[in-house]
């Protein structure tokens, strides 16, 4: 009687375990299903309209067949490029300071914590900030102000990853440098940064991946343009803002071109992300 009772309890516990762990497995599948669904939709709808004209031609007025998104591709490239050029030095510089100079300072630690918070900052607020600082005084939208907004988004990401990576470089290496009479900047340049260059590169790529898919900060900084321009002082189209405009628009062709642009954008962003991941995992030592 007693034995049977015990057996039953154990049986129930086992069933319970299988049941709940089964639910956990289902949630994992749930995540995978959405990933597959989004990617498949983007591929299926995008690939139909993915052709050379998309990259090589300016858009035609709505209602007229053909045309491409050359202006958006070029604009996106320029805006992201300038943002990267501004963002990398400032981001790495701040990260190096956090890790190398500010290790024992409470003030610098507080700065680092705030930077950590800014990483998750609402990007649209940064758009409004840059609008007030750069667009309003000048009087018109500019590609470069979009770059500044994106750079402001990128700097905290690069700073935090640089700091994290530099913390992994063993202190004994630095001390060896100091023992040889090197100055701090020499130790940073020849020891810390050299040891951590792969990890810092990862941070840069993650930063680019982060900003390359951003729309909100560009809406009222770089704005949009229906023509190709390479002048960053002009309003400039970007892939993301163009997708926003085209998807919201009433024309069937706009929707298809938005899908095609989404395909390019998604796989661009995922490619950057995977590249960064591979770099981390194939690291030799301190990243």
């Amino acid at each position: 009687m007693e034995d049977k009772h015990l057996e039953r309890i154990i049986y129930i516990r086992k069933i319970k375990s299988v049941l709940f762990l089964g639910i956990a497995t289902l949630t994992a599948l749930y995540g995978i299903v959405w990933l597959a669904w989004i990617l498949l939709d983007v591929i299926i709808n995008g690939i139909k309209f993915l052709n050379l004209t998309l990259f090589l031609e300016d858009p035609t007025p709505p209602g007229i067949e053909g045309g491409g998104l050359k202006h958006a591709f070029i604009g996106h490239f320029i805006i992201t490029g300038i943002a990267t050029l501004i963002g990398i030095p400032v981001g790495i510089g701040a990260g190096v300071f956090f890790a190398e100079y500010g290790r024992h300072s409470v003030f610098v630690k507080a700065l680092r914590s705030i930077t950590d918070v800014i990483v998750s900052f609402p990007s649209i607020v940064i758009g409004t900030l840059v609008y007030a600082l750069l667009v309003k005084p000048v009087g018109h939208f500019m590609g470069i102000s979009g770059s500044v907004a994106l750079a402001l988004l990128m700097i905290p990401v690069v700073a935090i990853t640089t700091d994290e990576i530099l913390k992994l470089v063993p202190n004994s290496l630095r001390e060896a440098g100091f023992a040889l009479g090197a100055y701090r900047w020499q130790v940073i340049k020849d020891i810390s940064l050299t040891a951590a260059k792969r990890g810092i590169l990862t941070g840069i790529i993650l930063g680019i991946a982060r900003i390359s898919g951003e729309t909100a900060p560009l809406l009222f900084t770089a704005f949009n343009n229906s023509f190709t321009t390479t002048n960053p002082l002009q309003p400039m189209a970007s892939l993301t803002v163009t997708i926003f405009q085209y998807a919201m628009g009433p024309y069937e062709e706009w929707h298809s071109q938005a899908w095609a642009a989404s395909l390019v954008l998604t796989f661009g962003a995922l490619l950057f992300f995977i590249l960064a991941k591979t770099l981390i995992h194939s690291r030799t030592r301190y990243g």
Partner: protein
Amino acid sequence: MFLKVKKKELIETSVKTSLGAFSLFVGLIFPVVTLCVLVFEALPALEKFGILKFLTGKTWDPVAEVFSALPAITGTLLITFIASIIALPVSVGIAVFISELSPRALKPVFTTAVELLGAIPSIIYGMWGLFVIAPLMAEYVEPFLQETFNSVPVIGKLFEGVPTGVDALTSSFVLSIMIIPFMSAIVKDSFEMTPTLLKEACYGLGATKWEVVKDVIIPYSLPGILGGTVLSVGRALGETMAVAFLTGNVHQIPTSLLEPLTTITVAIANEFTEADSDLYLSSLYYLALILFVLSFGLLMIARFLILERLGKKWKTNI
């Protein structure tokens, strides 16, 4: 020789100062300037409507130039709340699966898959939601929910209205998919911080795997789950493009989940370039200021109260 040393010292000072300036810029000047600019730009609206009236008023009328934030704030909080409610159990489930159940060889595959979900640009979520999810919701899911809960007293009210697919339900649903990767990554990390010793002790007492998860791992990593949730909520508050297509941008306080609404971010994104009067633009800055304070406060809480204490706990316990 002396000159050389002098030169090197000079470089040392200049490197230190410039790097210090960079970090001061990121960690202090940038957020402070943001706050100042937002306050300055919001001043006209701040003077006209005051704080309490702006926060509690329900009108958003660009023609009459009467603006208030309650609908946008409610919308933001509502969508974020529902999205988190959906995302939390799923994220915990995914974390349990990846850290405890999946075969070792498949672990990186699942981890990467979830991370990829987080790397997809948010505008893609928005567009996909508009073209794929919204029609499905309008056609099948929402009528089904209406029929099912029609006679249930309170819940039935939640699903009243015409199912259009562009509403609170769809917005929060798409937002929940967006925050799952972020949330589950933090939960998974804190799960993996549970000392193996504790788990083995529990197994040694004859516990099943589920009992180990329920009684050891989850209680142990509760601060991490909490911190991850608050961080994700902080992020979801500021999310713009994923919901920009799906809310309908109607300044009203929804009485059912099937009504269109607006959020702070969506209102700014849609109306900023159309704002034709100074007061209109200023009111949008006022909204941005509210969003700034909300999300900065929330992220700070997550960072200092929860994650910081968590870090210390981990360090002392292991």
